[in-house]
């Protein structure tokens, strides 16, 4: 069954407009648990309490920004409402860059775009982005939130990503370089060999969330009343010299390759 669009808008590039529908591309498969009251095995609820533990009803709750420890500036709903961006249906594309200009850590949520009416403009834009090997930088307002994003072609279709704010991404440049001595030449040569032996193509089919399956199987069995006994797994960690670890790894891999 086809998914339902979560939003509709127009991709705007100069004077050209491409009407699109937005669909979630991600579907989180994490095993979802609920928090329960241990005694009654029922779902718990949440409320806001003051320091004495007394409940404060929703209509009495105010929001404040802590300017220094213990000092708050209170903001009321009309004030916060004024900060909301104006509603709009436009996804404005402001610039185009090479995909590597947007590092992985900026990508947040992916959405498929589908044509809303005119299919030829939609597929022409996807093709043009692919031919030019570029991603568009997008700005739009959706559900009272301002978003910055990246527009790119994924095979034949368009995908729009929300991007994280610059303030949200921690850069390695703000961190100290790791301590310790630099690797020597021999180690570098061996490591290079090892990485070379393991070089390949990214293939998403190679990776299955096996742990998720184990958890689900365990839950099914436990629901039927016969949970298997689980044993404590001991982690043993042997410290070996870097030299030995590397040469052993290379040896094993070579054997595996030959056997294959």
């Amino acid at each position, binding site marked *: 069954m086809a998914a339902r669009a979560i939003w509709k808008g127009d991709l705007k590039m100069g004077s050209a407009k491409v009407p699109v529908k937005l669909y*979630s*591309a991600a579907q989180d498969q994490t095993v979802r648990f609920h928090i329960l009251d241990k005694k009654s*095995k029922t779902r718990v*609820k949440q409320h806001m309490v003051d320091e004495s533990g007394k409940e404060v009803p929703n209509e009495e709750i105010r929001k404040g920004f802590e300017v220094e420890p213990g000092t708050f500036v209170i903001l009321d709903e009309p004030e916060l409402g004024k900060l909301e961006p104006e509603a709009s249906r436009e996804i404005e594309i402001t610039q185009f860059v090479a995909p590597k200009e947007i590092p992985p850590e900026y990508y947040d949520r992916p959405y498929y775009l589908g044509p809303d009416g005119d299919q030829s403009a939609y597929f022409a834009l996807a093709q043009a982005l692919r031919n*030019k090997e570029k991603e568009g930088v997008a700005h739009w307002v959706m559900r009272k939130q301002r978003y910055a994003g990246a527009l790119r072609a994924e095979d034949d279709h368009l995908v729009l990503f929300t991007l*994280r704010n610059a303030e949200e991404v921690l850069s390695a440049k703000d961190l100290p370089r790791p301590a310790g001595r630099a*690797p020597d030449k021999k180690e570098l040569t061996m490591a290079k060999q090892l990485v070379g032996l393991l070089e390949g193509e990214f293939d998403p089919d190679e990776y299955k969330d096996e742990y998720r399956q184990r958890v689900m199987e365990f839950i099914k069995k436990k629901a039927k009343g016969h949970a298997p006994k689980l044993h404590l797994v001991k982690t043993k960690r042997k410290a070996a010299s870097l030299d030995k670890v590397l040469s052993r790894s290379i040896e094993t891999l070579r054997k595996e390759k030959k056997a294959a």
Partner: protein
Amino acid sequence: MPVDLYPGNRSSRLPLRMLGPEGEPLSRHYYSQETGDDLEDHEMVRGFEYENGKYVIVTDEELERLAPEQSRDIDLRKFVDLESIPPLYFDRSYFLAPSEGSEKVYKLLAETMAKSGLAGVATFVMRGKEYLVAIFPENGILRAETMRFKDELRTPKEVGLPDMKKVPAATVKKFENFIAKHSDKHLALKELKDQKAEELLKLVEKKRKQHKDVVKVEEPEERAQGKVVDLVEILKKKLAGKQKAA
């Protein structure tokens, strides 16, 4: 290679606190629907709803024991060109810090990957979840980007997108020209600034100067001590080799 994982993203959501009528900070509390009583941590359990209203209780210990030993280490079995991974897979970002005794391997791996331009791909289990990660160096530090598993992404077909149609070459050309005209060498970081946060801060500063709606509350000791642990600070110390395992 034993390593520790630290978040590489931080929430930019401005921390607006919930306050009571007199401006006193409030906190969120769980309570039982059955009895209405407040619940402490040890009075709550984790349950999976397998039928409407029926739950299977799963403990931390069980989740821990369900992970096979070899799944707990980050075992890099494949190195790929980072740019060949479609961004659809990227989820959250972390930094890896060497754990005791692994500083040498860590540096060696970072340097080797930096030279080859490759990223290592691996899966591992941590705190009740399996992660698929791409590991790549940035300024001598290893970044681990968690990725979605394939079944966590819909396909265009599942979404119901139409198949590609043949389009007039002139329309493609028109878009190509537009792209060429508006292409830049670099992404302007100002495109990614948090405008709402800036506007909110401005409003806060203005009200503060006018002494409007400013409340001071005595900071209870508990709150002052219970300050959020700053993971970035711990990571910095860890990288600099100044602190043992957190």
